[in-house]
């Protein structure tokens, strides 16, 4: 993660120097920024569409390649689903054999693969071994809680990271920088499950005089209230702790990333020019430094949304959040092959889609990358 961050930061930095930071800053100062963007868009018109098309094709290829790989990887997972589902219960050997045939596990691997792919193209992801329900139903049920949790956490942690990172990078090694960067690093290094459990004990159960005013896990109260406003408020209360945990461990990387970019930008002359014209520091930061410093963070933010969809397992486990990550984690135990394949499809799509969006957004934000 660190190396990728450094690399992305490096590329933009050198690009900036090449294209002449001063001149560019001058454009921005004169308020030509928007116009410059537009002209860049027109100039790159043909190539941009080609680029989109190419990117889409690439994404499709990548998706099918990962799904093929996943299918065979899941099949070499240790464990026999028929056996592990029957373990500890009175069964007969004939029933086991029959069950294996029903699930189609006795057929050659390539036949199973063909059937899986053909069904998937028709939108049928099979029936879960463990839950005895269509995988598409399970995924739909679990997708929204995960998107809600991960989405909220992504928005909050990006905003928080950018805010604290800009302030820290403006005066590197100042007292504020030392404090916020230490906090961000420590939180980033904290094991998610452990932090979650601490927050759950502190704010959920309550310690000493601290009252436990937030619920201990789950998506709803038991029983859930009826009516839309009550439901929204109820889910929001349940969202606080898991979201806080995710934000705490995630925002650090945005903080560090944007801090580094701001430090670089700070050295450019356009900043000095801007300050010399008498602009307040706050507006120099916001209007001139931040837009230039945001590029690597944009990439990182999109990539993270894709990754975190699968990576919230620890939070979903501690807070009993009925999400996708935990569904996949539990499915490995059996192994519940249809569920594993289904969740892989969602995760891969998320990562690849977010990569695609990041590519295109960065191209739109900074036309230099298209050339």
């Amino acid at each position, binding site marked *: 993660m660190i190396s990728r961050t450094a690399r992305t930061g490096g590329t933009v930095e050198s690009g900036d120097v090449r294209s002449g930071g001063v001149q560019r800053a001058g454009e921005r100062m004169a308020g030509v920024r928007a116009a410059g963007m537009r002209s860049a868009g027109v100039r790159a018109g043909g190539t941009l569409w080609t680029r989109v098309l190419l990117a889409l094709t690439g994404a499709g290829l990548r998706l099918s390649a990962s799904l093929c790989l996943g299918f065979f990887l899941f099949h070499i997972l240790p464990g026999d689903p028929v056996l592990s589902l029957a373990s500890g219960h009175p069964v007969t050997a004939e029933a086991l054999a029959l069950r294996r045939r029903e699930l189609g596990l006795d057929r050659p691997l390539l036949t199973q693969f063909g059937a899986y792919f053909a069904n998937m193209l028709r939108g049928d992801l099979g029936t879960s071994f463990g839950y005895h329900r269509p995988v598409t139903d399970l995924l739909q049920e679990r997708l929204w809680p995960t998107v809600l949790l991960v989405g909220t956490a992504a928005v909050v942690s990006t905003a928080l990271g950018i805010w604290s990172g800009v302030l820290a990078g403006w005066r590197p090694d100042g007292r504020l920088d030392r404090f916020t960067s230490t906090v961000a690093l420590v939180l980033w290094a904290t094991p998610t499950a452990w932090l979650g459990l601490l927050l759950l004990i502190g704010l959920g159960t309550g310690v000493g005089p601290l*009252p436990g005013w937030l619920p201990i*896990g789950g998506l709803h109260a038991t029983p859930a209230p009826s009516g839309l406003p009550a439901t929204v408020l109820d889910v929001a209360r349940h969202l606080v702790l898991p979201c806080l945990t995710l934000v705490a461990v995630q925002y650090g990387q945005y903080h560090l990333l944007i801090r580094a970019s701001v430090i670089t930008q700070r050295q450019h002359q356009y900043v000095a020019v801007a300050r010399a014209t008498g602009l307040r520091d706050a507006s120099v930061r916001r209007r001139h430094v931040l837009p230039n410093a945001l590029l690597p963070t944009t990439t990182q933010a999109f990539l993270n949304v894709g990754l975190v969809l699968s990576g919230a397992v620890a939070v979903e486990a501690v807070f009993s959040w009925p999400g996708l990550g935990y569904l996949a984690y539990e499915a490995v135990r059996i192994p519940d092959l249809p569920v594993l394949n289904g969740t892989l499809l969602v995760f891969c799509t998320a990562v690849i889609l977010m990569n695609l969006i990041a590519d295109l957004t960065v191209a739109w934000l900074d036309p230099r990358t298209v050339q």
Partner: protein
Amino acid sequence: MRLNRCVAVLLGFVAASGPPAAAAARAEAPTPVTMVVAALQDVDTLNPFVGSQATSTQIFRLTYDYLTDYSPVDNSPVPGLAKTWTTSADGLTWTFRLREGVRWSDGKPLTSKDIEFTYRTLMDHPTLANAAQVQNFAAVRASDPVTLVITTKVPIPNMLTLDIPIVPAHLWAGHDPETGLTGTAALVGSGPFHLVEVRQSSYYRFESTRGYWRGTPKVSGLIFRHFNDSDAAVQALRKGEVDVVGNLTPAQYDALAGDRRIARNEAQSSRFTELGFNAGAARADGTPIGNGHPALRDVQVREAVDRAIDRRVLVERVLDGHGTAGVGYLPPAFAPWGWQPPPTSIRGFDPAAANRILDEAGYRRGPDGVRLMPNSQRRLAFNLLVPNGRAHYQQSATYLTGWLKAIGIEIRPQLLSDTEKGARTAVGRYDMFLGGWILDPDPDYLLSVQTCGARPVGSAVGLTDTFVCDPGYDRLYQLQARQLSRDERARTVQQMQQRLYDNADLLTLYYPAVLEAYRGDRFAPLLRRPAAFGSVNGSWSYAAAVPLRPAQPDQGVPIWPLVAVALLVVVIGGGLWRLRATRDHRE
């Protein structure tokens, strides 16, 4: 301006998040009491023909009736839907007289037709979850609405402990039992509780059935709340969000000791942990399979291993004292089936004797201290499969490695998942393994996995645990299957365990206690099954639970200090912000 709006939103949220729940509880406090049970396993399905997870079977016990039940006192069979029963002289025909006036939750009467339908469905679909229990049924006939006649191919000793929920024939007829019912039809049952709300992976809500034939439950409702993490469930118990939590770790259980609001229960003798050997894995026709170490086929090596193990240390250090040392296959307290060797023939902890046995049998020590097989250079180095699902396996493996090293046996523990362990043992690719079983009230299934017939046929997977094949044991297994007198059968079952012990085919290490806790301030002591040392985590205890007082609302959340703190933070933060801004400006 913008800041003020933020404050308003923040305050609104803080104010709204606290009191409503408490206020609601206060308003409707007097009568209904709902018991919240922490479910640590997800419910796999609500279809009683396929569901097999522990939580699902617990739900079936709450929402359906069974032909007969277990006595909460001693687990012996007691009337369920059947009031009385008779057996023919050859033990092949059973006639059950049913309770009258039992109704499904949709109002239709429950008759012998429903039981006939349920059993026949299982007989026709051998892959359904409970089908193995009816595999020896020849015919099931509802001769009139309150009489059911079952004929069997061979005598079935566990006929009175069939674990098969009876489903409503009028709803299920014509449906594929694999797919099951959907919508409200799927929730129709006849048990002490009925399901009213299902949110998969969140919670299951039940209401008690008024006028249930065994008596209306004292609690008005029951909620199974799903937890992915048992530490979180314990926190919810402390806080009062849940009332019952089962399957605690020794550390969690001990940490709850000081809390006066919480009652704890240590249920004994419902499971055991074994050290299994590969004493010659083979298929049912005798073809050897796998790669087990040949030395383990020698009963003297297995006995020496047994004598090198200090079980009391395992119980004290690994289980923190929550359990008992293992002897026979089934726990001695598991009456009437449990057995332990007479004091004279018990193989106690005695490393010196273990060394002597191995010396005399010709297993001399090699240069590195590890023994060699007689007339061979093959070292006594065994792999030990250790499932990573439970911490006590890993801890026990560490002790075993040290103890066996002292008698010249090298152990190489291999940590793996439960499923991988299952897959390795099924094909005999192991030397030793650690594993465990949970006991049903009837021992038939656990006895059957040690018969020759449980070994794999052809390339299929068998049900065997350790590939034991002892014709003498099998004869006794056949005998107990025909013994309809509980006492006679118990004696045979004990003889079978004697044979297992004498052959040292597997070593029972300990019987871990099942650790449970519940809110003693909200409920009178819950019912244990069996009464002397059993678990409180089951339908028998929920249906009989007596709420102590009308539900007390949790202490009202002191909201004003929080609001004050939030205000303070915002004011100070805002002030600092302004200060910083002007400082920048000054510069």
